[in-house]
């Protein structure tokens, strides 16, 4: 019987054979924290181990200030300071301060992540790094603080679900719509405790930003880690960033053809249409055409799910096709995921078009993933967003959010009500 990718990764990280259901201790390649959770982990480590205690390897720690960057309150500013000072004492160099962007994206761009890496982070969407074949998973502050002691942590070897995807997206439809479709199908707990391998021609031909979108949303089905071993253009990009070793790892860690899966699902995207997650849950899915015309107060494009350059460029195409202006009744905010993405938007003229269109084009940050940063919504308002969650009151008590693709979000911003992007992209 062949092995799945996660079994191969855990054998490599633990140094011995493993099987599904085993509890294993894996070596940690990166123990990372955001500005959220970071101070909690640091304080817990020092409380339990003493102020003088050293982490196992400062070169395997990273901190990314993204949830509330720049700090919006004295409390957050203090937490960021606690992290900076800890890093100075410990000799941690990988501190991506407020001018970098969303952690996983920043680490990917910095060439820190390779297939098979075991990456922990205080971000439940850490697992989007499965888009390059890493075993990355979101954890709490205890997991991080405990990892600092010896560079190891415990895992249960998970069963793997395989999702094969075929077909080509039609105009106005994209990977976000596929993912929304899958969440509607499987529900919020549909992948609980599972690893998930995405395969098939649609995946093999997809770009990195599409893989990130797909992988970032596995958390919304309570999945442990999604895995796509790099190939094609993604492999080339990753080799340039993270080094030649990537190629060998991607090959070695690919699942065997006779690997055993707990479930195999097949989706064809040929006839897929634009979809949205309606209030107040990601798995409350409807076709955009069924909710078209719904009044909207705010549109947000960005986040770890859909904040890459290609996502923003897709929204830009809809904006220009729609006349280059957003509706004056809709507050529209675009947030690139990293400074690299932001700079490209500036250099290629997208940023100027956004500003002329009446859009707020912000620094890279998680922004609208919390109610405690800019873009918070008052009670009674309706928002559309490309973030990954629309839980009750998530960005403001009494407000409601529809989740959708960057194209649908921009079509909505242009028309002032929920709009199928195919009505603009004719």
């Amino acid at each position, binding site marked *: 019987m062949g092995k799945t990718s996660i079994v191969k990764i855990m054998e490599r990280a633990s140094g011995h054979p493993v099987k599904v259901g085993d509890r294993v201790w894996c070596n940690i390649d990166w123990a990372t924290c955001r500005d959220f959770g970071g101070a909690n982990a640091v304080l817990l480590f020092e409380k*339990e181990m003493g102020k003088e205690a050293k982490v196992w390897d400062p070169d395997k720690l990273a901190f990314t200030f993204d949830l509330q960057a720049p700090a919006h309150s004295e409390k957050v500013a203090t937490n960021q300071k*606690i992290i900076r000072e800890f890093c100075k004492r410990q000799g941690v160099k990988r501190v991506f301060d407020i001018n970098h962007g969303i952690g996983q994206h920043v680490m990917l761009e910095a060439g820190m992540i390779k297939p098979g890496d075991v990456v922990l982070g205080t*971000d*439940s969407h850490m697992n989007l790094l499965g888009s390059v074949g890493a075993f990355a998973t979101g954890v*709490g502050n*205890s997991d991080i603080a405990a990892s600092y*002691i010896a560079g190891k942590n415990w895992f249960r070897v998970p069963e793997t679900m395989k999702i094969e995807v075929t077909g080509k997206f039609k105009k106005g439809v994209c990977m976000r719509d596929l993912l929304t479709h899958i969440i509607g199908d499987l529900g919020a707990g549909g992948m609980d405790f599972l690893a998930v391998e995405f395969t098939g021609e649609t995946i093999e031909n997809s770009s990195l930003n599409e893989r990130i979108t797909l992988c970032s949303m596995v958390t919304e089905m309570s999945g442990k880690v999604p895995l796509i071993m790099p190939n094609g253009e993604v492999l080339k990009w990753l080799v340039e960033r993270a080094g030649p070793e990537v190629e060998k790892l991607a090959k070695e860690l690919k699942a065997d053809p006779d690997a055993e899966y707990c479930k195999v699902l097949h989706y064809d995207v040929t006839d897929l249409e634009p979809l949205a997650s309606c209030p107040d849950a990601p798995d409350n899915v409807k076709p955009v055409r069924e909710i078209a015309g719904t009044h909207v107060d705010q549109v947000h494009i960005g986040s770890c799910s859909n904040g890459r350059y290609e996502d923003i460029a897709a929204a830009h195409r809809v904006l220009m096709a729609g006349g280059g202006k957003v509706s004056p009744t809709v507050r529209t905010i675009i947030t690139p995921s990293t400074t690299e993405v932001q700079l490209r938007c500036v250099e290629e003229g997208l940023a100027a078009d956004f500003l002329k269109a009446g859009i707020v084009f912000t620094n890279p940050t998680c922004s609208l993933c919390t109610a*405690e940063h800019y873009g918070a919504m008052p009670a009674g308002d309706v928002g559309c967003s490309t973030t990954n969650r629309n839980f009750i009151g998530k960005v403001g008590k009494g407000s409601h959010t529809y989740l959708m693709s960057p194209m649908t979000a921009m079509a909505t911003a242009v028309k002032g009500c929920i709009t199928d992007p195919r009505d603009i992209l004719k």
Partner: protein
Amino acid sequence: MSEILKGRAWVFSDDVDTDLIYHNKYLAETDPKNMPQYAFEYYPGKENFAKEVKPGDFVVAGKNFGCGSSREHAVYCLEYAGVPCVLAETCSRIYYRNAINNGYPVLFVKGISEAIKEGKIKDGDQLEVELSTGTIRDVTNGNTFHGDAVSDLENDIMEAGGLMNYMKAKVGAK
């Protein structure tokens, strides 16, 4: 050990996400002792949980409890409120892991999701819970449920009082 815990039930639905348990508005909090005051503030109909919960009360929920964020605040806010354990059909892996790592018991209770939907266990019911056997008796209406206690390594971590203690013992740290 056959200690029987007694307390009232606070009953929740399936797919209770971490923003409902502990809203992102309060993520900058770093002291677990300050977290209970925010518990379930955003859960419709349970806004008064933090004010009214008594040490010993139980949180009873359906499937996939604690889905969403990795915030450990969502465990601390119940633990430090004196809720001795969570009784749920299942919980999300991220919540489960945070609970185990704090030595905080979560019992997986077969059939409780349906029982909640059918009104067989309600807010305010008096419960008796025996952690060692996983037996849950609803004294108010006479129903009995069975929860699976953790096994394997998770049990060892629980018995050590959480992951930090377990790791310290494992590497022989002071």
